């Protein structure tokens, strides 16, 4: 059994001035080196979860531990070093006046010595392929580039977990591709754990495991195949099914019996062009 890097036990959370719980009795583990997607429609509690994980909010009841450290007021600074977050709006998380200043911001906060800082800034920008933009100002960068700088800022702190909190939802398809590709490469290189919080099932389809949230509770947990076999149930939860899944469902309704649910268009195309030969 792999080791759980993050574990939530019976976590409940309620925002002030709100009658219903944003999260209710949530229990699950996140394992080392996996890509976990947390999906759900607006208000399902998925973004609250991200805030709880790095101590931006504290649960009313239940326990959260990250890398074996119990999350509380004292430990949040250590935990934030281990758990980097990339937020939704590319502009509103860019603190520095230039690319390198922004990457250095997190390092400055944690009191990293300057010599080490210079190396880490350059190194992490190289990893996200933004090292030619060292002195560029943020308003000259595209959304995808800004998000990659944000990833570099997180990487520079050498975390073991990266949380993408809707990090691609404000990007165009090209930027989205760039960002996800960058994270995927990094995950493989550094055996990072990735938690991607998203409502884009297409993005989730590429994860190792998916947790579906609904009304503050864990509705379902499983591999992408398991989750996408829920079909209409997902639609009822306010989630949009990826095109390839919709397509294979449509085939099935027409009486063409495909062997399984297809998560990527490529797989579907492969099945389709080899299909005839099977009959």
């Amino acid at each position, binding site marked *: 059994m792999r080791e759980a890097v993050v574990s939530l036990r019976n976590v409940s959370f309620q925002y002030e001035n709100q009658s219903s719980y944003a999260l209710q009795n949530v229990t699950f583990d996140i394992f080392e080196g996996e890509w976990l997607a947390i999906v759900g429609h607006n208000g399902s509690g998925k973004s609250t979860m991200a805030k709880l994980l790095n101590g*931006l909010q504290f649960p009313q009841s239940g326990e959260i531990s990250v890398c074996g450290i119990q999350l509380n007021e004292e430990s949040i600074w250590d935990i*934030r070093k281990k758990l*980097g977050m990339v937020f939704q709006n590319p502009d*509103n998380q860019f603190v520095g*006046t230039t690319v390198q200043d922004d990457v250095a911001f*997190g390092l400055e*906060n944690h*009191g990293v*010595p300057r010599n080490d800082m210079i190396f880490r800034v350059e190194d992490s920008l190289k990893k996200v392929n933004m090292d030619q933009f060292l002195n560029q100002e943020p308003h000259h960068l595209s959304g995808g580039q800004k998000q990659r700088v944000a990833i570099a800022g997180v990487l520079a702190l050498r975390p073991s977990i990266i949380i993408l909190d809707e990090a691609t939802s404000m990007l165009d398809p090209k930027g989205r591709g760039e960002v996800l590709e960058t994270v995927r490469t990094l995950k493989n290189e550094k055996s990072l754990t990735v938690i991607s919080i998203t409502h884009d099932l297409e993005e989730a389809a590429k994860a190792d495991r998916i947790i579906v949230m609904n009304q503050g509770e864990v509705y379902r947990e499983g591999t992408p195949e398991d989750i996408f076999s829920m079909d209409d149930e997902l639609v009822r939860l306010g989630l949009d099914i990826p095109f390839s899944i919709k397509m294979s469902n449509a085939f099935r309704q027409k009486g063409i019996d495909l062997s399984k649910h297809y998560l990527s268009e490529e797989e579907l195309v492969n099945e389709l062009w080899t299909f005839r030969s099977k009959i």
Partner: protein
Amino acid sequence: MMEKMIIGRYVPADSLIHRLDPRSKLIIIFLFVCIIFLANNFFTYILIGIYTILMLGLSRIPVRFLYAGLKPVLWLVLFTLLLQVFFTKEGSLLYELGPIKIYEEGVRQGIFISMRFFFLILMTSLLTLTTTPIEITDGLETLLHPLKKVRFPVHEMALMMSISLRFIPTLMQETDKIMKAQIARGVEFSSGPIKERIKAVIPLLIPLFVSSFKRAEELAIAMEARGYRGGEGRTKYRLLSWKLADTLQLLILVVLTILLILLRS
């Protein structure tokens, strides 16, 4: 259109003045503003003039940029000149036309004061023209560091300044966007009577305000998530380096001050 309005007007170049440490530049400008008041006769003004022109020459800033900086205050200079010329009633009478009397001292004072204005503006714009806003912020932070002892929030001020600088272009872009959106809805920003035009700014300002607050909140969360917890225990990425040229520049200014004190009447 908005791009042009960015404050600072920094002109990138690789001159001696550009390479100076922002701290020495800030000190030089501050001292210059003080010692310019020592000048009170022909020789001292010539001396200040030579120094200013020398500094401008060293900065290799094209004259048109200097002129652009001077343009808005030219009227003010002219106004003070006229004020002095017409209202100083000392020295011998030079010219008389009905109630208007122009005295020698008035002309002298007028010319001196407008010269003083001129040099002041040239030197201060030299600072903004050769130093990036972020360098100025860094310089101020280190220079004001001793004020920390009296609990002046130096680090916070510097951070606020640098974040404001970073968000100016972002907010400019946003203003542009909102403006276009409102124009598309029939708001007229550039025509009609003044009263209407001022009213038209309200639907521009309100969305801008709302979104700025939202940005501020998200930025604060992002900063906290990246481990920001105030100035304590923070290291700095940007490094200022005081070089020989900085010390020399300060020495030149000291020499100038001594000369001014000796030559003033």
